[in-house]
């Protein structure tokens, strides 16, 4: 792990190449990860390009064709207002994946930052962890209500109603879900800090910034990866709860979580309406999880060498 790590003999004869190629080589050997990547790419392509091919308006209520089953005109049927389910799933996926990914990244960034700082610098530990306690203790719903009241109008005036809401939701979810990651990362950093190689690097005068980026961060990757997969699922579902409460996107704006939520009452009559968004969410989370697994293995030089 350290800068002067011994290299294998044959590697010395190969032309130097970017280490990301090594990562990719290792990643390729991981079947699950490749599958995950393929599925995730497929979902992304469907969601991004699909609406250009299947150009039905997801919010158009066709009142003559309510509650239709699968047919050529509507491959996945229609909902209680005659809106095309396939178009809604694609439109919903775009929002859900965007919200899920960005909110997860924001919360990971905040969590890792706070966790590493608190774990590494003893002086900041007390303050940062008490702040974490505070955020863990705050009741979520009133906090979100307050944030929406304060920021919804300025944001939608600035960026338009949809982009404004998007920022608001991502911010709201990110700011209220980083605490677990922070606590976990801090715990790991506390033990890593006392490991021999860290002490060794310290003794040769490695500056803190370099210590953290080169030695600490790569070694807390695996809990971060787990947090990431959990975070996506959490963000998608929280978004649906927010929109349901009227704190999120406008009511006719489909998202996966909302499609699922709205259809629960009709589960017995139209099971497809709950199964489809449910499967979409699970598939996304599952594929991200496998990609995360593969990435973690690929980033770990000990495994990569094997």
């Amino acid at each position, binding site marked *: 792990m350290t800068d002067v790590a011994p290299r294998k003999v044959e590697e010395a004869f190969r032309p130097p190449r970017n280490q990301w190629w090594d990562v990719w080589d290792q990643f390729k050997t991981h079947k699950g990860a490749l599958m995950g990547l393929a599925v995730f790419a497929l979902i992304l392509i469907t969601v991004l390009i699909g609406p250009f091919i299947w150009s039905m308006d997801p919010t158009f209520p066709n*009142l003559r064709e309510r509650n239709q089953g699968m047919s050529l005109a509507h491959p996945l049927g229609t909902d209680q207002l005659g809106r095309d389910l396939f178009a809604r799933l694609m439109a919903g996926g775009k929002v859900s994946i965007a919200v899920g990914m960005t909110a997860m990244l924001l919360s990971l960034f905040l969590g890792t930052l706070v966790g590493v700082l608190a774990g590494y610098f003893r002086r900041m530990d007390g303050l940062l962890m008490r702040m974490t306690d505070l955020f863990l203790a705050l009741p979520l719903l009133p906090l979100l209500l307050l944030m929406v009241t304060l920021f919804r109008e300025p944001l939608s005036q600035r960026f338009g109603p949809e982009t404004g809401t998007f920022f608001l939701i991502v911010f709201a979810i990110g700011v209220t879900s980083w605490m677990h990651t922070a606590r976990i990362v801090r715990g790991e950093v506390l033990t890593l800090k006392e490991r021999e190689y860290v002490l060794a690097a310290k003794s040769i005068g490695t500056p803190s910034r370099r210590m953290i980026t080169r030695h600490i961060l790569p070694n807390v990757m695996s809990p971060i990866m787990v947090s990431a997969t959990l975070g996506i699922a959490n963000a998608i579902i929280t978004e649906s709860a927010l929109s349901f409460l009227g704190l999120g996107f406008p009511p*006719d704006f489909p998202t996966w979580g909302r499609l699922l939520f709205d259809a629960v*009452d009709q589960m017995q009559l139209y099971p497809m309406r709950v199964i489809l968004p449910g499967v979409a969410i699970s598939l996304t989370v599952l594929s991200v999880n496998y990609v995360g697994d593969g990435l973690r293995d690929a980033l770990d030089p000990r495994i990569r060498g094997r």
Partner: protein
Amino acid sequence: MRLKTALMGAAATVLTASAAMAERGADGHVNIIYWQAPSILNPYLSSGTKDVESASLVLEPLAGFNEKGELFPRLATEVPTLENGGVSDDLTTITWKLKEGLVWSDGSPVTAADVIFSYEYCTHPEGGCSQAARYEGIQSVEALDDLTVKVTFTAPKPNPYNAFVGSTSPIIQKAQFENCLGAAAQQCTDANFGPIGTGPFVVTEFRPNDVIQFEANQNYRDPAKPAFATVTFKGGGDAAAAGRAVLETGEFDYAWNLQLAPDVIAGMAAAGKGTVINAFGTLVERIEMNMTDPSPNLPEGERSTVKHPHPILSDIRVRKALSMAIDRNLLVEIGYGSAGRATCNLVPAPEMFASDNTECLTQDIEGAKALLDEAGWVPGSDGVRTKDGMRLSLLYQTSTNAVRQDFQAIIKQWWSEIGVETELKNIDASVYFGGDPGSPDTFQKFYADVEMYANNFDGTDPEPYLAQYLCDKIPGPDNAWQGENINRYCDPEYDALVAELAKTGEISKRAEIAKKLNEMLTKDSYIVVPLVDRGRNSAHSNTLGGVVLNTWDSELWNTSDWHRIK
């Protein structure tokens, strides 16, 4: 209102009374589920309908409403009227007589003192009584003897049946609540959780927001009733779960107010364990038009105030076109099924008050377009009409509720067909209806162009309801946004007519004026665009007998007649 209805009501009770043949408590146990859980059993401190209805198993008023909206005596011997001399000729007093031999569930007699105390309890300035409006305009309540109470009003009252009538103003026991007047009301947990009453049941255990256990009142005035020995009243969950528990699993016998999509209810009822019942009251789902400009570009404190008339909706032709584009029957079919019917009226019932206005029931997209053309709104390249550089674009808000969101989506579609662009917004009900002057999202502030919600009136007299649209009830920053004239409608002619209604005693004349007022708000001005007359769906198991759904009073108004069908 005077009172043929009351007499008919009295007659109706005599008939139902003869149905009793069983023995008290012979039918064992009954389970009731409300998806909103009761938090207190004192209706005077209630925080919503759920509390009042659960308390109605225990506490009773002097007179109540039956399923037809007619008055019938409960603790009183008869309903006082002008004809029987109970109401004075000048309409300023009403005299109630209590039934003889009435006792509380603890065995002590019910007297005029209890009635007077109930009035004092609710009108105490520090008590924060939720039902204080029912006791408005009363000068004094006095006992003529142990069983006779005379209520004197400050001015002639054409409708004297507010105080002590209906489950929202029951009689509470003086002995129990004596030390709970005013600010002390909060401390009386035992009394608030277990009021002593005259009704068919007695509270044995109350767990707030969870469950209530009742047993039959051994001192109930009819020795053969109630048929059930014990009652479990469970609260919480959601409407679908409550419906499922009655209609599909059969765990519960009665479920209240199943606000579910028509096909979901039909699917549950197909299981064959229970029956869905429905009835209509005065609840109307409507779209309210904002007559003032809600634009966010105006300084705070001037948005949605009478200073700035609405740039688009001030034109009646636009309002009328918006109403014409709506197919109300289709809305009913999608959102309410048997629990709704299309209406053009703000006052849909009682029958004598309901206008025969049905013009709005046929959708007329072409007519709406023509009307907008006439008003000078010309379609732009993207299909949205413009006039003088302004787009015909509206913000349409409502509370969070699955059916309302469906309605928003459909109406947005219809409006887009006539060239109106709509932005939708939904707000959590606790904020929307909360009336917090600090929040921009309350229905009173109305920072939107149109909004949708439902409202109704207590009892059968629409006067206070129609009086909400007076000029001086416009909410604004000067009155902390408290006011019921949500649309900021102001018409001196309307105000004058409301004043006339307040002076009119004769029932047929009152009805005539009320109809006129209703039309002024709806078909003459399209300030209020009624959509659906919302009834109520409840469900009972097939083995539960005697259930009569009542929307004029507590749904549990006749639990003493409930029995098990064997």
